[in-house]
Every structure is written in structure tokens, then in C-alpha cells.
């Protein structure tokens, strides 16, 4: 949850979290950061009264598909670990496991990447690909006066918050996909000015492409998964579906377009099943 910087003590609507029934010393000892943040930034003393909370996007369970042992993706030589990689946390990550994830799989990815680098020779590169990538990167400088990358970003945030948020419906998700197409067209016209030195507007106009791809992948998968499981909640399908329990959504690029495929959830290896049974 995030401290609401916009609340007033006399707000009449909103969700409030109250731990003031606990002794003040206990609250300060267990939640020192939270106590200070609320005090300094919102003049709220959480040992004395409630704090306003609101939902926000905190962590993405999906991500790049990787091999469990080496953290290598389906692109040879590309490794991913942590929040960027998918599959470790299932439908909802437990608190604290992100940090342990990074340490364990970050190390695995590093070791595997080093071994890979020793094994393979430098790939030959296609200069025309490099040239067209450069051209694409620099395009926003010639687009000036058309679309602000910040405006597209704001609208993307608004869109995802409203239509692909915590509680999802078929109608909302369908609408989101239509709107994302429009945003993609606007992002292609995003323009920036100034120099290439540390230009955040330029960085954003490039990042928008990835943001839109990920947003579309999330919306497509959410639309297809007609059940509620973990962090994915469908108002129109509020229960778990045993068929979906056995399936992953995989997003791939086919013929230049985004395609969704389904892939079976692998059976848990015997030795891990034994560990769980022993609990």
C-alpha cells in the first residue's frame, strides 16, 4: 500500500488501515519506515489514527519465460531473473520472496551466463539491423510537435488502472485492447526535443514501446483466463477453474504480431512433491 499524499483528515470516502489499537512503541518498532513516512509526508501519526490506503501496481508475477536451472530465456544467450522472469511465484508472490528470488536466481543467471559466454564465440552481426535500430531510436527527434511521450504514458497508466486493474471483466479487458491499439499509434508519433544527453523524454518515448507490449500481453492473458486465481480476479468468473489450473498463457511474436498460446503446467518433480508431503 502507499501512503496517500492527497488525503485530508476530514476525507469522507476512502479505505483506511488502522493499527492504532496496538501500543505505540510496538508500532514504531515493527514499522519504523512507515511511521516516519506517514509522519513526514502526510502529518499522519499511525500510532494514533488510521492511514488512508489505495491500490497500486506493486509487482508483476508474469514475465520472461526462462529455464528453471539456468535462467536462460528462449533466446540463446539472454538470461532473466527476478521480477523480469516468470514462473517462480505462480499466481501470487508471497511477501519477502522477491528479495530471496533475486539472490538465488540472480546468482544462477550470472553463473549460467558466464558459462555460456565461455562456450560460444561472438556472433556475427547484421549491420542493416543495427542501422534500422538506430533509426528507430532517433525517430522521436524528427517527430517534434506531434505527440508528447508523457501524455501517452499518463493515458496508458489511466487505462491500465481503470480497465486492467484488480477486478477485471470481459467488457473492460476487451475495451482495454482496443484503447491500447490507439495508444500504440500515438506512441509511434511521440516526439522529443533537445540533446541526446540524459533526455528523459527521449528514454520514455523508447520505453513506451515495451510498456505497450507488456500491457497488451497482460490484457490478452487476463481476458483468456476465465477464472480467478491469486492476484488475477475476474468479477465475471469469481471461482477457480480446474482446467485453467493446468495451463499457462504464453505470449509470442508470430509473423510480426502478438499471439497467445497455451502451454501445460508441468507436473511437479517427485522430489519436490515429497518435500511438500513431509510438511
Amino acid at each position: 500500500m502507499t501512503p496517500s499524499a492527497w488525503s485530508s483528515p476530514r476525507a469522507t470516502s476512502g479505505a483506511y488501515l488502522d493499527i492504532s489499537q496496538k501500543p505505540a512503541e510496538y508500532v514504531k518498532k515493527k514499522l519504523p519506515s512507515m511511521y516516519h513516512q506517514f509522519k513526514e509526508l502526510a502529518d499522519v501519526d499511525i500510532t494514533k489514527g488510521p492511514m488512508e490506503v489505495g491500490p497500486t501496481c506493486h509487482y508483476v508475477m508474469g514475465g520472461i519465460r526462462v529455464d528453471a536451472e539456468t535462467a536462460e530465456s528462449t533466446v540463446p544467450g539472454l538470461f532473466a531473473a527476478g521480477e523480469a522472469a516468470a514462473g517462480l511465484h505462480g499466481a501470487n508472490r508471497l511477501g519477502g520472496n522477491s528479495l530471496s528470488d533475486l539472490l538465488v536466481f540472480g546468482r544462477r543467471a550470472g553463473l549460467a551466463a558466464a558459462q555460456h559466454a565461455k562456450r560460444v564465440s561472438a556472433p556475427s552481426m547484421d549491420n542493416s539491423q543495427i542501422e534500422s535500430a538506430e533509426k528507430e531510436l532517433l525517430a522521436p527527434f524528427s517527430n517534434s510537435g506531434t505527440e508528447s511521450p508523457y501524455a501517452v504514458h499518463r493515458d496508458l497508466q489511466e487505462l491500465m488502472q481503470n480497465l486492467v486493474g484488480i477486478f477485471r471483466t470481459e467488457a473492460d479487458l476487451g475495451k482495454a485492447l482496443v484503447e491500447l491499439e490507439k495508444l500504440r499509434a500515438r506512441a509511434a508519433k511521440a516526439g522529443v526535443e533537445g540533446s541526446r544527453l540524459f533526455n528523459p523524454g527521449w528514454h520514455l518515448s523508447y520505453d513506451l514501446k515495451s510498456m505497450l507490449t507488456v500491457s497488451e500481453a497482460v490484457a490478452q492473458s487476463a481476458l483468456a483466463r476465465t477464472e480467478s486465481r491469486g492476484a488475477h480476479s475476474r468479477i465475471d468468473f469469481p471461482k477457480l477453474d480446474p482446467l485453467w489450473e493446468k495451463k499457462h498463457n504464453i505470449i509470442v511474436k508470430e509473423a510480426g504480431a502478438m499471439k497467445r498460446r497455451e502451454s501445460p503446467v508441468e507436473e511437479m518433480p517427485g522430489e519436490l512433491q515429497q518435500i511438500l508431503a513431509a510438511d
Partner: protein
Amino acid sequence: MAEATLRVFRGDSNGGQTVDYRVPIAPGMVVLDALHHIQGHLAPDLAVRWNCKAGKCGSCSAEVNGRPRLTCKTRMDDLPQDQPITVLPMKSFPRIKDLVTDVSWNYRVNRKIPAFEPRPGTDWKISQLDVDRVQEFRKCIECFLCQDMCHVLREHDQKEKFGGPRFFVRIAGLEMHPLDGRNRNALLKDELGLGLCNITKCCTEVCPEEIRITDNAIIPLKERVVDEFYDPLTRMFRKIRGK
């Protein structure tokens, strides 16, 4: 809606000047929010470092109305709104662009400091009192506001001779660790210029984590260096024992 004027430095290593921007004010806004507004609506190429916006990462250091501050922790309503609010980059580090400076010197200093090394046969138990003492130093978020503020660096540019308060805090955390077996006193005296600090405590004033830098880190380290190298009785005993 109420508005304020932010006077922000625009420029690079070759020079620059401040530019005024009008920004709408909302309750609870911090200076970083205002900078984001400028980026989003008025100057898309305004270079600003930031990340967590929660006072934890140490990225958003700048000088607001003449004081080194984290822009994500400086409330707009703490500042006088009837005159322009100046936002300048940290003075002690070379400018890259606008509010972004090159703080890499700090990481070069850090590499001079030998890491924690336990004594052989260490029993891995620490008392809570020892933990509490060292925990204070580990609160540091490497915002480098103390480095920016310290006159030895800021006014006298002694980067070749002086490590700065941040690294005295780091070394204090290592030296006061009960299980660490190294001695960093010579490093402090000869390479990191601990003696150049004249305990004016400006660093302590700007630390966003409220680490008592001078009182709890620098002065005890000075005492250790003095005990080892300048105590006449110690020196006499050393001479007698032929060390």
C-alpha cells in the same frame, strides 16, 4: 488552483542558467512532484535523477533553496510559496545535465576500503547493543548529501585527500563491528584524510536518515586514530618493546 514558481538549473558541464517554471500546487506535494510536472508538461528533456520517491534509494539529491535535500522528501508546503523556489544540482560533483551530477568519485573511494573480514575461529554471536550501534551506520542510503555539504569537498575540493563523511560512516560500521578483524586506522589517517575533518557537523544536519555522523562515526574514529598513532605513552611503549 494555487501555483508556485520553480527556478530550476538547466545546463551541462559547459555552463547554464536557471529557468522559471509555473507549477500547480496540490496538498501533500513534494518538490519531485513539481519536477515531474515540469518534465511532463513544460520541459520534456529536464534531466532529473529519481527512483523510489519514498526517501529510500538516495537518487533524487539536489539543492532546494540553498539546502542539500532529497527532492522526494521536501514538501512544497514547507517552502515559502510567494517567491521562486530554487532547485539546483549538487554543487560538489561535476555536472552532467540539469540536476544530474557525476557521483562516480564516491564509488572509487569505496573501493579503497577493505571489506568486512572475520577473525579466524569467530563465534557468530553478536549482542543487541553492538547490533544497534552498527545498524545506525547501515541506514545510509548513499544519497551523498553529506559529501555535497562537507566544506572540505564543497569549498576546498579535497577529493584526492579526503574520503568524506559517507565513508567515515561506512568505516565506522566496519570498525565497530565486533566480529571484524581488520584495522583501517592507517587508511583513515593517510589516504582518507580523517584529520581534515574539523567537526563542524554540517554533514549531520543534512542526513535524511538522521545518522549522527560526526558524533557517532567521525569522532570515535578520530579517537582510535589518535590512540594508535599520536598517544605519547603508546609510542613510548612501542619504542621500548622495539616495535
